[in-house]
């Protein structure tokens, strides 16, 4: 047992006092968190891939797509919504750059701005659903409507989560004293910006499949 | 009534192609038994002879020779067992169960449409005009009659949930899926009565979804067919929409 226990006998208290260790630990943890986010995104990409696969199978099996007797999907509002989502990603990225440079005000503008644009996206989405619903496109009318509502609604849930998260991050940024680099708020911003970009990319694919093609 | 089986093991085979499955099952069993026996003996021998009193050999099994042997052995087992099964299986499908050209080429081929629903089998024969979904169709419930030694092609659909049309004595089975037309074929080599079973869970009365397959001699089949056609023409009711569940024989599906 002597050799096996050798490793344990070195110190009594856990942790070693090394200069600058806190910063290195923080950056190590940050990289671990980014890796976790990347793994999560791979997982969630599979979920949306499955939904797109379902869309494909529904569409291949349909006799007419879109069905002749149902209202057409609009293109104008969704296109604007798409542009807004792209813009919000851009804003967020600027906010992130500002955070790195230590510019708190522009970091806050980027984060809160992205959340605001996300909210506008949701409002537009709601109005599109409302108009289509009252024009007669309800989920019970067949696979076309089923695919449309399921995909866009499931994506919208992700936008809602993202908006809430960005608002929380913005609040944290606002409350952090001094420079926010290396703080929990800065970490949160990096992770949620990845999430937000992913929501945007998925929307791009969805917009193409559901509205354009 | 179908006759009960007398002993365990596969039920009586009355299919012209059934021997393929029975033979392959036997071959698989031989392989499986051999490998299982070898494994068990190996474990027992090791536990008895290489127990506590046996000095363990220091061997991490990563020498070139050992790796080669392990690879060669698993490749050998894979080649012999899986190779055999793969080839036999593919031959069975191409020459038997999935060879619809062979079935269609026969002059005495019988075509039947089967519609599964909770919890019964509707069967439809084209009748004298040779066309499905017309006035002279012969429609039966849980009662399918076919001639002996003739290929029978069944096109399958379902109206509510998924069912599976299974003929244990003929060794074949095919799912009946709503919105799809599936197909299968078989050829019986003996006359008699056999069970039609539903193999896919389809609700509370799944266990009662039982039909009967009657294999008749060609003469008897011709007589029944003529009688049934005459009866069905008289019984036809244009207003009874639910009775018209048939479809045009799916040509691209043959």
């Amino acid at each position, binding site marked *: 047992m002597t050799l096996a226990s050798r490793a*344990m006998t070195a110190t009594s208290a856990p942790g070693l006092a090394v200069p600058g260790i806190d910063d290195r630990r923080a950056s190590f943890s940050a990289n671990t968190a980014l890796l976790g986010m990347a793994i999560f995104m791979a997982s969630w990409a599979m979920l949306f891939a499955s939904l797109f696969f379902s869309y494909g199978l529904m569409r291949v099996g349909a006799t007419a797509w879109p069905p002749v007797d149902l209202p057409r999907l609009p293109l104008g509002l969704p296109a604007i919504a798409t542009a807004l989502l792209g813009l919000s990603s851009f804003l967020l990225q600027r906010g992130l750059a500002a955070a790195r440079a230590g510019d708190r005000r522009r970091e806050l503008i980027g984060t809160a701005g992205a959340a605001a644009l996300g909210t506008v996206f949701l409002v537009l989405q709601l109005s599109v659903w409302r108009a289509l619903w009252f024009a007669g496109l309800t989920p019970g009318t067949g696979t076309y409507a089923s695919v449309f509502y399921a995909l866009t609604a499931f994506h919208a849930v992700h936008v809602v989560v993202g908006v809430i998260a960005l608002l929380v991050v913005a609040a944290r940024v606002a409350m952090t004293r001094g420079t926010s680099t290396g703080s929990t708020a800065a970490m949160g911003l990096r992770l949620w910006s990845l999430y937000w970009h992913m929501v945007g990319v998925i929307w791009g694919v969805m917009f193409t499949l559901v509205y354009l093609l | 009534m179908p006759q009960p089986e007398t002993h365990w093991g596969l039920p009586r085979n009355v299919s012209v192609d059934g021997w393929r499955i029975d033979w392959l*099952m036997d071959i698989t069993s031989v392989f499986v038994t051999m490998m299982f026996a070898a494994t068990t003996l190996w*474990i027992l021998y090791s536990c008895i002879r290489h127990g506590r009193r046996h000095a363990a050999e220091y061997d991490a099994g990563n020498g070139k020779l050992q790796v080669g042997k392990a690879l060669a052995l698993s490749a050998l087992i894979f080649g012999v067992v899986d190779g055999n099964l793969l080839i036999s299986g593919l031959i069975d499908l191409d020459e038997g169960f999935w060879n619809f050209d062979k079935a269609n080429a026969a002059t005495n081929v019988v075509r039947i449409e089967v519609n599964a629903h909770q919890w019964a089998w509707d069967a439809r024969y084209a009748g004298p005009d040779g066309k499905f979904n017309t006035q002279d169709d012969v429609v039966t419930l849980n009662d399918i009659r076919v001639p002996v030694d003739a290929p029978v092609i069944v096109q399958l659909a379902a109206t*509510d949930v998924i069912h599976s049309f299974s003929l244990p004595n003929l060794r074949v089975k095919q799912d009946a899926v709503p919105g*799809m037309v599936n197909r299968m074929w078989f050829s019986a080599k003996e006359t008699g009565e056999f069970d039609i079973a539903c193999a896919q869970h389809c609700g509370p009365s799944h266990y009662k979804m039982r039909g009967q397959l009657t294999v008749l001699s060609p003469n008897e089949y011709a007589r029944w067919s003529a009688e049934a056609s005459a009866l069905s023409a008289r019984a036809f009711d244009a207003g009874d929409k639910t009775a018209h569940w048939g479809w045009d024989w799916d040509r691209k599906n043959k």
Partner: protein
Amino acid sequence: MTTSIELQPIHPAPTSFWRKYVFSTDHKVIAKQFLWSGLLFLLFGGLLAMLIRWQWAYPGAKVPVVGGALFAHSSGAIGPAAYNAIFTMHGLIMIFFAITPIMIGAFGNLTIPLMIGARDMAFPKLNMLSFWTFVVALGLIASSFLVQLGSAGAGWTTYPPLSTRVGTPGAGQTMVVAAIFFTGAATIMGAINYVATVIRLRAPGMTYMRMPLTVWGLWLTSILNILFVPVLGAAAILLFLDRVFGTQFFIAGAASVRGGGDPILFQHLFWIFGHPEVYILILPAWGFVTDLLSFFARKPAYWYRGSVIAMCAITGLSAIVYGHHMFTTGMNPMLGKAFMVLTLIISAPAELLFLNWLHTIWKGSIRLPTPMLFTLGVVFVFAIGGLTGIYLATISTDLYLHDTMFVVGHFHFTMAAASFLASFAAIYYWFPKMFGRCLYEGLGKAHFWLSLVFITLVFMGQMAVGYAGQPRRLWDPQAYTFLQHLGGLNRWTSYFGFALGLSQLLFMVNFFANVFGKKNAVANPWQVGTLEWTVPSPPPHHNFDVIPTVVRGPHEFNHPEVRRLLGRDWLGQTEEMPVPTPTSELETIELPRAPVKA
């Protein structure tokens, strides 16, 4: 890349009761939480199995003792609808709420940080969230039995249209679909943690090729979970929408009505997940087995690298063979044949792994304490389960066997028998580390022998009736003429099933007699060299006072120099090879038959 020593985060030990035992972020506590809930639902699922076996032995007869209370509306007998709910929930509970939490939730959490030399998981809070999301799913499952029309009844595979409102009305099925989504989310959270922990928090020197195979198995399982549980999630979402919001993904009309929903879409999604799921449940077991065979044969694992390669190959292949579950759905013949080829190919790496196991115990010095008995039991039942798979991989024999009890027997040998015995091997093996006490050897051995004999007989019985053509899921197995001679066989299989159920009482006695007792286990009762045995049993909150530095693989047994110089037959992963000194001399080694007591 392995972590340098000082970067591993340390979390202070919690002091309040809630933080310590309920909302704990400590991987060891979460492991226990998963173990407790998994064992509870194993009991639940097992009792459901007893009801199924009763029904198959005496179809429609009054259930003794509990019948009057449970099935009051059908005068104490199991009615067809209740029977559907029972077999459906038996399957779902065993797979998602018993095997998964025990093998992956409990032993994944316990072993991964301890075996790679980490102080906790990479994301302890996510770990806690994973468990409590799982609890939400458990709540939904349990309450689904209480609502009107009862719990889900469409089979564990939940095929629509039977699982839509058309086939199975009532809130029970909807709640179960939601529960599947929640437990899937919990699984993904856990898997993200496991993958990140293994990548980031390995101790210095713990390279991938020095990781215990237990960790390899759990890591590969987690990768499969991350990639394929979301596919099940998508299927569950679409089914939920069909049931609640009236969408029409899976609702199709008659043959003449084309262009409706597609029931087969669900089967694609389900089996894209479902086939990897089979390996998700067996890869950790393979890991345990490969390690434990070496530990108790006191011999290095045979061709460690080959086992790793085989497990990776199987992980990869498992993603592209799912179509063999759908041979009879009317799939394109070319596609069917391709899936048959791929399915047969997956047996090649499996054979390699199996041969490695057999070579590991060959010419060893085998000890047979309870964990080793269970491990050898896994090899035995997995041989049956794996070999009977090839009947089903070949399309022509599958045409006859598909959806029969033969399939049921086959997957019970792999998923139930092998995973179940492997779970018990893990429980008996890691119990000292987890709870600080050893389980009784005598009771454990009796539990093993009874379990092995009866589990083999039960599932052999199922395969025998399946060989005779008995379809699965029949309320009355003698409903068809060609099955009437199987009454005796079904009854005897049930008797074996009841005996299997009763044998588990031995485990319950053993477990409860020791789980709360005084902690008296030594640090390393089995005399093996992996990292978790270098710390006390149970380990302190932060696991390692100092993160160890690893210098070798996990299976260093009976090295001649170590025997000669240290007088023992194993060397720890952190230990340098001893340097000869003039005084050392040859010693004989006598290891205890039972785990070493303090």
